[in-house]
């Protein structure tokens, strides 16, 4: 099972963090910082794997990939294959690349909710759901289309009290 997906830049600023089991905010921050400090101390041209029991508990592994100014990080347990996880990062990046045509850090920063949409199509509740980037793209586009459509229809604000009364 995948425990967490993180993206952070090379200065350690989190760009996206999703934990598949609930963790309090402070713990999340601690883990993000911990992961970053490990990653930043890794030399170049070494393996992309880390055993990370000290942060995430026994039998935790981490796979990361460094693209330009970003680290893509997957944390998972022993029931996943490290090389396959590395390819899952590849899937994610390829998909983002198609989404944003030549993805860069800024795309990720400014399209926060779209990032989550993409990620939710790939990893669902900690399991790999879909690895075909075309399919992911299709799903995401369908959502955007529908959202855009519904957005233009209803722009009439509903008050809070109106919502309460409606229930």
């Amino acid at each position: 099972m995948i425990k967490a997906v993180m993206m952070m830049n090379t200065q350690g600023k989190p760009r996206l963090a999703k934990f598949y089991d609930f963790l309090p905010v402070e713990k999340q921050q601690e883990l993000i910082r911990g992961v970053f400090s490990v990653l930043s101390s890794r030399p170049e041209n070494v393996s992309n794997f880390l055993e990370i029991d000290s942060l995430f508990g026994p039998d935790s592994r981490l796979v990361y990939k460094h693209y330009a100014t970003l680290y893509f990080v997957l944390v998972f347990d022993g029931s996943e294959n490290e090389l396959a996880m590395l390819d899952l990062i590849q899937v994610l990046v390829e998909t983002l690349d198609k989404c944003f045509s030549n993805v860069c850090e800024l795309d990720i920063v400014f399209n926060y909710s779209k990032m989550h949409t993409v990620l939710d199509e790939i990893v669902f509740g900690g399991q790999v759901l879909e690895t075909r980037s075309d399919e992911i793209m299709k799903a995401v586009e369908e959502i955007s289309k529908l959202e855009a459509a519904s957005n233009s229809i209803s722009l009439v604000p509903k008050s809070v009290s109106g919502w309460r009364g409606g229930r």
Partner: protein
Amino acid sequence: MEQLKTIGRELAMGSQGGFGQSKEFLDLVKSIGEARSKAEEDRIVLSEIDILKRKLLEPDIPKRKMKEYIIRLVYIEMLGHDASFGYIHAVKMTHDDNLLLKRTGYLAVTLFLNEDHDLIILIVNTIQKDLRSDNYLVVCAALNAICRLINEETIPAVLPQVVDLLNHHKEAVRKKAIMALHRFHRKSPSSVSHLISNFRKRLCDNDPGVMGATLCPLFDLITEDVASYKDLVSSFVSILKQVTERRLPKSYDYHQMPAPFIQIKLLKIMALLGSGDKSASEIMYMVLGDLFRKCDSSTNIGNAILYECIRSISCIIPSPKLLEAAADAISKFLKSDSHNLKYMGIDGLGRLIKISPDIAEQHQLAVIDCLEDPDDTLKRKTFELLYKMTKSSNVEVIVDRMIDYMISINDNHYKTEIASRCVELAEQFAPSNQWFIQIMNKVFEHAGDLVNIKVAHNLMRLIAEGFGEDDDDADSKLRLSAVESYLQIMSEPKLPSLFLQVISWVLGEYGTADGKYSASYISGKLCDVADAYSSDETVKGYAVSALMKIYAFEIASGRKVDVLPECQSLIEELLASHSTDLQQRAYELQALLALDARAVESILPLDASCEDIEVDKDLSFLNGYIQQAIESGAQPYISERERSGMLETTDYHSQDHHEVPSHALRFEAYERPKPSSLRTQASTELVPVPEPSYYSEAHQPISTSSVSERESSEIKLRLDGVKQKWGRPSYQSSTSASSTPPQAANGTSSHPDVGVGSSSLKPRSSYESKKPEIDPEKQRLAASLFGGSSSSRSDRKSSSGGHKPAKGTASKPPKENPIPVQPPPDLLDFGEPTATSVTATDPFKELEGLMDSSSQDGGSTDVMGVLYSDAAPVTTTTSVDSLLSELSDSSKGNPGTYQSQTSKGPNSQEALEKDALVRQMGVNPTSQNPTLFKDLLG
């Protein structure tokens, strides 16, 4: 430049429809991105929080604005700040009909809330509605949310809808419904146990994606219960075969591999099903062989599948051909330039080595290369492999390597792990004792306080006991080498506390043993330790105890002891220490220096750390004294309960109780021993040591008072018996591990009867309790069961006694244990007007009171039982004689004080011996009775 790019992006954002954000949000992101320090970032975020708090309070916020606020909240929380003030708005947003807003709401709540959050209750209804929606995207959003937001209690609320969705016409929905069910299964297996068959059904889904999704829950289910899925072996194999033969639509290919993630999941499942099952394994041979041939090892994903094949082969019962193929694949991995592949190769090697141990040999060089690699991950993996392949022939090399690496790293987590591995390997394969001690020294020196304390205790025991061979010469050589190495290491600065404890103990025990080093040299070193680590009380305690032993051995061998000036000043410093433990040690050391050789020898015999501690739990050596006291008319013991509450009712109940105990307790028929005959019995059978003489010597003149209470003594004794009935079950339950628990309990509790000497209910039982203890076989068994585990014993003590420390208590249970549990007995005893009339008998009343109160109290019985049962009677050793006579000598000189001491701690003689022996055992130091020694002897 960066800014220009940002502006460009911003402009581009406007054309991106639904995902575009407002200027404010972009400004926020930008300013955070440009923040120079964490403090600056925090300041920006805090002001943003203020803005949001204000804005969220405004009435009639346009929805699009609200959506943006929610996104900003999410962003703030990702940066580590609390956004809980806005949670309710996110929850509200999930109720919206607009898909965009709804999805934003769901996204926010899944990130904000945990499944037990109070607000979830407001969402469940919406989720239910959305799961029934016609729009499959709404359904998907809801399914996404339930993975995170539904807990055990709310599962039933959505379960029917989720099950319905398993047959939804859209495969994307079916897939997510399966995943959601899987999630439920993980959270609460019982809630979906009746639906497990659905997973099997979905395995035959028309859509390969849905089938692939089904493999995730099946993998979990098979992990839990392999046997009930054996029938699926051929199905899985045929699915894998079809996948590898490219029967799936082309769209499932990834980097020219057909559905690699499905293949990997299938291989994992097959590894589970084929494990230890020859026939299941045989079905898999074909497809595995095909995979090895077909897999494209030039792509990452191809290697992932290859690695998974290796893993499966290491789990199932493989054919030689497959093993060969796996070995080939591994050597390809190891020869690769990619660190990732090397890592997988080392991992695979570690798996295969269990099946064919010689496979590693051809890869020796590659393994060594990995060990030297700058990549830490690879290095650790290689150490894991080495750990798995350690034999007695290579242990020296491997452990040396491990220690070098251990010294080089700073990561405490891994340091601890590798240190424990070193210790484990050294213990298992050590080629020689010297080597073992050297390794342990290194581990302690460099990993020090990270090492489990048990390792230190093991090492001390090993040095004390030798290596099991009956070769005393070798043992003493071993000790000498240990002492030498420690003397060398000691001069290094900043050693870990645990290591210093071991050093101190060994130096104290064996520093002067073979005469190579003088007592003053060793004691000087020990003083240095105590000085240099003056803030560490445990180390100081060990050092002082070691000093005591050194001096004791000197005195015992008849040499004159010159206490070094620094030792003297250390003792004086500790006499005034705030730590009662250190204070007591100092007092004891001081007292010991004043004793003569015979006494010292019996307190701290040479090299006796492995001797069993024998404790006379009946305090039978007091029998003679009790006898005398009774004969001369002393008041017999009255138990705590009688004194405090039942005194008035004693007479009424005495008759009824008279019958009850004798039946209920089911002891053998007792004759009532005549007071006079008991005394002879006590001195001949019960106690092989002629203590009575000592007691008569010491106390004859005192015990001359009242004859008054004699009749009532009989009645009260029976009540004692009743009490045993109540007390007994707790003894049995709590001390069942010890060799003679019931006897031990009886032994203690029956003592009052023996002491009073009339109408005793169970003098027999106390005789019985002695017999098995005298048996040397059992003594040894008990010693091996309990002797070494001083730490665990002290653990138990401290847990039941509250503030009870380890070492001293072992020596003085009767005095200390009951006090924290039931403070009254002591005071009551002294305060009791009836008792004061006969001061001479006070000690024994006291003792009985304590014993009894302890037997009444559930909490302390455990302690007492443990203590008593693991200590055999001390009085059987002859050396005690001399000690006791020694003591009696001193007490004769000042009978008054001695008496008052005995009334405080009735069995302090015994306590003294026990204490001495316990100390030799190196039990963790601490005690509560620092003045005992001084009072006794001074």
